């Protein structure tokens, strides 16, 4: 995916800014789900393949995106687009002079100049919420074996019912990670 061109939206009108209300945080994957589904007009199946998640997972992400946007509209909240469990292939940067995005394939060396116009006014598109971008964090669903209670990390794209418990040889069930929903 390419990162969105903006960081978020602000409401306007006389009522805005009177109450200090929290902004709505639209995750990158939710932005991407909305873009694929409603901007590129793909169906959920095609879009789920593009995002390398299962079709039900895509629909969950998409529903969450719509819910957040509706919340922002109705309650007059700001939307900020950041974070999420996204896989950027490498570090991406943005040049403030010529407006191009570029990546840095040499991870050992850091980038200081724009490869196109040579300007040094570049901004890293790096993960501001690096915790959330880390796939190994605690904020993911689990597969659980109902027989022995064994839990393992859920692999996106593979339904839990296809995961077999190594001890009991029966298929596993999805377990939502509650730490994640409350945060």
């Amino acid at each position: 995916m390419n990162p969105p061109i903006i960081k978020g939206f602000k409401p306007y009108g006389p009522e805005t800014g009177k109450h200090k209300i929290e902004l709505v945080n639209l995750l990158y994957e939710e932005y991407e789900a909305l873009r694929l589904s409603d901007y590129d007009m793909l169906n959920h199946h095609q879009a789920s393949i593009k995002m390398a998640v299962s079709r039900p997972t895509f629909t969950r992400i998409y529903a969450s995106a719509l819910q957040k946007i509706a919340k922002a509209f109705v309650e007059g909240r700001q939307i900020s687009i950041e974070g999420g469990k996204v896989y950027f292939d490498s570090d991406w940067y943005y040049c403030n002079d010529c407006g191009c995005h570029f990546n840095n394939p040499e991870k050992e060396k850091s980038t200081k100049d724009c490869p196109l116009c040579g300007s040094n006014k570049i901004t890293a598109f790096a993960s501001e919420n690096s915790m959330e971008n880390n796939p190994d964090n605690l904020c993911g669903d689990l597969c659980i074996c109902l027989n022995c209670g064994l839990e393992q990390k859920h692999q996106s794209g593979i339904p839990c019912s296809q995961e077999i418990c190594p001890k009991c040889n029966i298929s596993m069930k999805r377990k939502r990670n509650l730490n994640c929903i409350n945060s």
Partner: protein
Amino acid sequence: MKVAITSTGNTLESNLDQRFGRCAYFVVYDTDTKAFEFIPNPNIDAEQGAGPASVNLVASRDVQKIISGEFGMKVKPILDSLKIQMVVLKDPEKQIKDIIEMLKH
């Protein structure tokens, strides 16, 4: 260093092609010798796999940087492993000569 730019035509007045795999022409520009070469893209009508085929084409020219409007899902991991830098410029009005001028910074 060699840079590939996706182009809609085979002149310096052509615009930057916003697609990578199915662009009309690749411009391979050498920043040291200031030489450039237009390569017609044979994959423009490919049903699928145009991106990876185009990567092979430009990688065979020892390109280290590619400037285009967008890179597809299949292309990004290949370019990452080949350590070719991707530059995404979302400006369909940009002409090839402007980009070459910018590269001379």
